[in-house]
């Protein structure tokens, strides 16, 4: 029962996290910041706006992106197979990339290209993460992983690699070149408007839920450790976001593939020997 409720309210939960994050970010810059419920005000406003449809496929792919992401979050909450979840999440990213390529805007194309490159960089880390959990727990099932004790120490290097992935997925500096509002005006989301942009906006919230749920897997059955981990990573990511500049796409791929995959490989090799 509680799982069904969690799944239904996952976007709202993500919206609250996003709103809280905007407040935290403003406070870090010594500003007052928007109210906590600001994302929902934005949402109501977007329902009320006229929406331009560039072409039907573009809009539908945007909605599909949101729906698949919701399915991903649902599977994580229900305790599905981690490897399936990683690939289903890849499918949702593919939808938004296709949407970006389906219109004629150059910014949209650049955004899609960058999104593809970013996916290329972080996907190996996510796959290695699930392999690491498999070697430790003997199963890809999230429900099994949740019952075991915390795996943060045996998977510490993979945890560090995962920390590199978080800013890419949440579109935070230094790894936000695929969105880059000042440069390519949001990349793939540029041609969405009105209700259809709202789906993209809510997909962004679901991305928060997905990433933090993955993070909680490291804590296993230790709830206190999980809460501590989530809060610590939340503040770390925002601190880094506020204090660093954006890196170029080439460097993003080099850093994440170079450091992330090396750390992951070392960890997996180590697990194989123990």
């Amino acid at each position: 029962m509680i799982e069904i409720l969690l799944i239904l309210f996952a976007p709202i939960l993500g919206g609250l996290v996003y709103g809280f994050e905007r407040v935290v970010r403003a406070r870090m810059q010594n500003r007052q910041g928007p109210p906590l419920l600001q994302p929902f005000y934005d949402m109501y406003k977007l329902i009320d706006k006229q929406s331009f449809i560039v072409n039907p496929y573009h809009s539908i792919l945007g909605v599909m992106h949101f729906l698949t992401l919701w399915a991903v979050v649902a599977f994580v909450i229900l305790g599905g197979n981690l490897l399936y979840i990683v690939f289903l999440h890849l499918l949702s990213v593919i939808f938004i990339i296709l949407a970006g390529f389906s219109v004629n805007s150059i910014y949209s194309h650049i955004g899609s290209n960058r999104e593809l490159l970013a996916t290329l960089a972080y996907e190996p880390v996510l796959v290695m993460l699930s392999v690491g959990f498999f070697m430790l727990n003997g199963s890809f099932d999230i429900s099994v992983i949740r019952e075991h004790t915390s795996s943060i120490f045996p998977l510490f290097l993979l945890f560090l690699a995962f920390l590199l992935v978080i800013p890419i997925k949440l579109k935070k500096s230094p790894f936000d070149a695929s969105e880059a509002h000042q440069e390519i005006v949001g990349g793939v989301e540029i041609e969405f408007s009105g209700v259809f942009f709202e789906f993209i906006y809510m997909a962004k919230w679901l991305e928060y839920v997905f990433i933090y749920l993955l993070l909680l897997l490291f804590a296993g059955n230790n709830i206190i450790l999980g809460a501590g981990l989530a809060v610590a990573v939340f503040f770390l990511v925002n601190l880094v976001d506020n204090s660093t500049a954006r890196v170029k796409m080439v460097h993003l791929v080099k850093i994440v593939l170079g450091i992330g995959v090396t750390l992951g490989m070392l960890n997996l090799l180590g697990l194989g020997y123990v």
Partner: protein
Amino acid sequence: MFDLKKYRKKSPWILHYNAGSCNGCDIEILACLSPKYDLERFGVINTGNPKQSDIFLVTGPVTFRTRERLVELYTQMPEPKVVIAVGSCACTGCVFRDMYNVEVGIDRYIPVDVYVPGCASSPELIIDGVVKGLEILEQKTKEMEKPFKLFKEATTDDGIVNRRHSALKVGEDDAKD
């Protein structure tokens, strides 16, 4: 059923366009978004994307080069929307009035809802202007508003649509009237 219109003024997203201004006013607009004045506490985001914004902040007198883009950006914004002319240039032409390459204010091309005077207008005035604009935004309907001087027919060069000469020149007869 709650009233969605109420939420319009809680999340105004801004599109800022420089129609040939001297950058004095643009710097003041950026100052509004800085920590000191912090426009974001009203939910304002500077999106830079016409398809997702509600408020169109225009600075500068309209130069010949910027007219088509001004009208183009205006038509790309979904309704309901509000246009705010920031600075004396955008209102009347200011010191550039009657120069050979400049129009007298943006209201020759698009309907303006709020005029914010000053050369350069101060951040406090701009915030007042935006807040006034929000009141107007609440009353607007989703009816399309037409720019005054829309395009003449766009020409095609080598199969590519060219809008460069599609705005009317000053004093030119409007075939649509």
